[in-house]
């Protein structure tokens, strides 16, 4: 049995410390679309690695090439020190895969589905245990067709885990789930991380990547545009706090005598409906009385249309402590390093311009802000 001993030696070499995943110069085009355009990545053992990006960024193509389901046009993929071209059988035994849209037959029960997948692996986890891990004990005899979205995803996870994989691929594991089911699935991933499994997941949810991943690669248009821990990436955009506000000149204000002061920085005005998204941020709720005091005299801004006013960006960027500025649908976004010194200065500057705030909120910078900063686009716009 030459081939077996060969495999054994490859395996032991792989165990000696090759990274779980190594990709070099990966390229893949579909028809005339370049889905993956030169991706290099390395994932260490025990790491939870996230591929983050909008739909169409090339995440799924990248992960499917890693899973051996798609042939790359160019580039090298090594998993556990092995390659698909030569060690496909061995690799299939050692990795676990959850695909984005796979549906198991409606008339199969949870237990039957898990048992079926267990039979494909030489070594693995007992069916009972994996059903317990996926918290599907109550649904054990239930048919797949009767499961909720979250339960179906947990079943998909169970079938990915049943071979006790050294490397686990999860492609958009929580897409389409309600918030509670998402959190439930996150808990499951947390558990797997604690058990020391290497996990590679794709997502277009920033909060998911931040919550679950040790390291994140942000992808856009088939390229990795940022790579690091969530904290590193957030720190890389400079400011760690984001201030969002909209200013308005209410119509009655324009008619009043003081309105003359308003003129200088107005470049254009646009009418837009007040979003009025209530901020859950504790910081902005602390600011609420301030808003009331300022706006209270001028008959409820939150419930009416306001005329939003564009401001010369240079004025805002000139405020000490402000790192960057952008406008999205009339809402100004400033990234600032120190909230407690920057906010009073922003208020002062706006007051000086004779503008009043129609919206104001702050939050700690997230990966979303990193993406916006790098691409000038919102992730969820896509």
């Amino acid at each position, binding site marked *: 049995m030459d081939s077996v001993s060969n495999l054994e030696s490859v395996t032991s070499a792989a165990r000696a410390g090759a990274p779980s995943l190594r990709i070099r110069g990966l390229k893949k085009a579909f028809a005339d679309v370049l889905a993956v355009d030169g991706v290099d990545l390395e994932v260490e053992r025990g790491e939870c690695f996230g591929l983050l990006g909008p739909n169409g960024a090339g995440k799924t193509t990248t992960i499917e090439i890693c*899973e*051996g*389901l798609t042939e790359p046009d160019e580039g090298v993929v090594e998993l556990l020190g092995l390659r698909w071209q030569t060690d496909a*059988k061995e690799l*299939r*035994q050692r990795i676990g*895969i959850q*695909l*984005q*849209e*796979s*549906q*198991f*037959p409606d*008339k*199969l029960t949870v237990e*039957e589905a898990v*048992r*079926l*997948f*267990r*039979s*494909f*692996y030489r070594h693995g986890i*007992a*069916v009972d245990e994996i059903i317990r891990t996926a918290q599907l004990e109550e649904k054990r005899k239930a048919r797949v067709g009767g499961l909720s979205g979250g339960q179906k995803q947990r079943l998909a996870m169970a*079938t990915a885990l049943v*071979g006790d994989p050294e490397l686990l691929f999860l492609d958009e594991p929580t897409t389409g789930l309600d918030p509670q089911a998402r959190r439930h699935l996150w808990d499951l991933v947390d558990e797997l991380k604690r058990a020391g499994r290497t996990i590679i997941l794709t997502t277009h949810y920033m909060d998911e990547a931040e919550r679950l991943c040790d390291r994140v690669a942000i992808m856009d248009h088939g390229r990795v545009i940022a790579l690091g821990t969530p904290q590193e990436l957030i720190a890389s955009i400079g400011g760690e706090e984001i201030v969002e506000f909209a200013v308005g000149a209410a119509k009655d204000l324009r008619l009043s005598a003081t309105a003359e002061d308003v003129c200088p920085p107005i470049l254009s005005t646009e009418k837009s409906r007040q979003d009025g998204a209530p901020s859950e941020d504790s910081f902005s709720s602390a600011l609420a009385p301030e808003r009331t005091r300022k706006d209270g005299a001028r008959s409820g801004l939150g419930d009416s249309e306001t005329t939003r006013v564009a401001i010369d960006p240079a004025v805002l960027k000139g405020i000490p402590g402000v790192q960057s500025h952008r406008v999205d649908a009339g809402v100004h976004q400033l990234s600032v390093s120190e909230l407690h010194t920057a906010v009073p200065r922003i208020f002062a500057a706006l007051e000086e311009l004779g503008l009043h705030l129609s919206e104001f909120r702050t939050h700690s910078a997230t990966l979303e802000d990193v993406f916006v900063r790098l691409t000038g686009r919102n992730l969820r716009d896509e």
Partner: protein
Amino acid sequence: MNKLELSSLYQLTMVRFKLVLREPEAIFWIFVFPILLAVGLGIAFRNRPADVLPVGATTTQLAQALAADHGLKAMQVDEAQGAHALAVGDILLLAVARPDGVEYRYDDTNPDARNARLLADRAVQIAAGRHDAVAAQNELVHEVGSRYIDFVVPGLLGMNLMGSAMWGLGFAIVDGRQKKLLKRMVASPMPKWQYLAAFLLSRLVLLVIEVVVFLGFARLVFGVPFRGPLWQLGVVCVLTSLVFSALGLLVASRARTMEGVSGLMNLVMLPMWILSGVFFSASRFPNVVQPFVKALPLTAAIDAMRGNMLQGIALPHLAAQVAILLAWFFVPFVVSLRIFRWR
């Protein structure tokens, strides 16, 4: 878990088997429909006493002469009425009295009308005083095995095996492809051939039930004969099922939609429904197309089944049919393994 439960081929086969049994429609088409069809045909083509043929005559004398034959029912009509009755099919033959004898009007392409002509002429000649030169006696025989129901049961069996194998596989595979289940399967270490083989194996399990139920019914209710060895009939059934499972695989190996696979399946099955002698003998088709008709898998299957059941022909003498079936199994199975689209 015991050893069998850890076998992926066993698990795949059982899953397929369970999925079919959990589909109520499948149960109807596989088990109930062929029995209903057999009952319907059995009633329609049951053996009745020989038909009495209606004829017309233009004179009372002539009508009486015709009525003397038990095989004829004669009525008296004038010539115009008679022509009308003949045209609308109320009578098969009109006997017109002529000064110099009798004139028979009938359609010589209609076998019943030709019979009526023979009976009518005999009756007229006997009435005129003819005597038979040779004394003849009739002894009537109704032989089991020569009835229409005996002929049609093997045909229905073959057609049913074809339909259930092709629909069963075709739809299940395209459904799995649409739901990305096939992609999930190849992402696991499952050997690909096992996935396809499980379809064939689960078909064989169903086949036992299907064949036993249908043939048992035909035997009990119609007394259809089994003249050849039963195990050889079993072999033919298994082979037939494998052939159409492999064809089902081939038809479904690339199709992405249900509409696509349905069209392909009809394209494959329709010629066989017509040409392969399910309801009437395939030998009725012109000699030019006979080689083509004989090479069809359903023709080979039904010929082998009829040979076994009705004539008691042993398997070695059905070698041609068996060879055709084997070819129709291996070629489609190997081709579909190669061209199968997993995603």
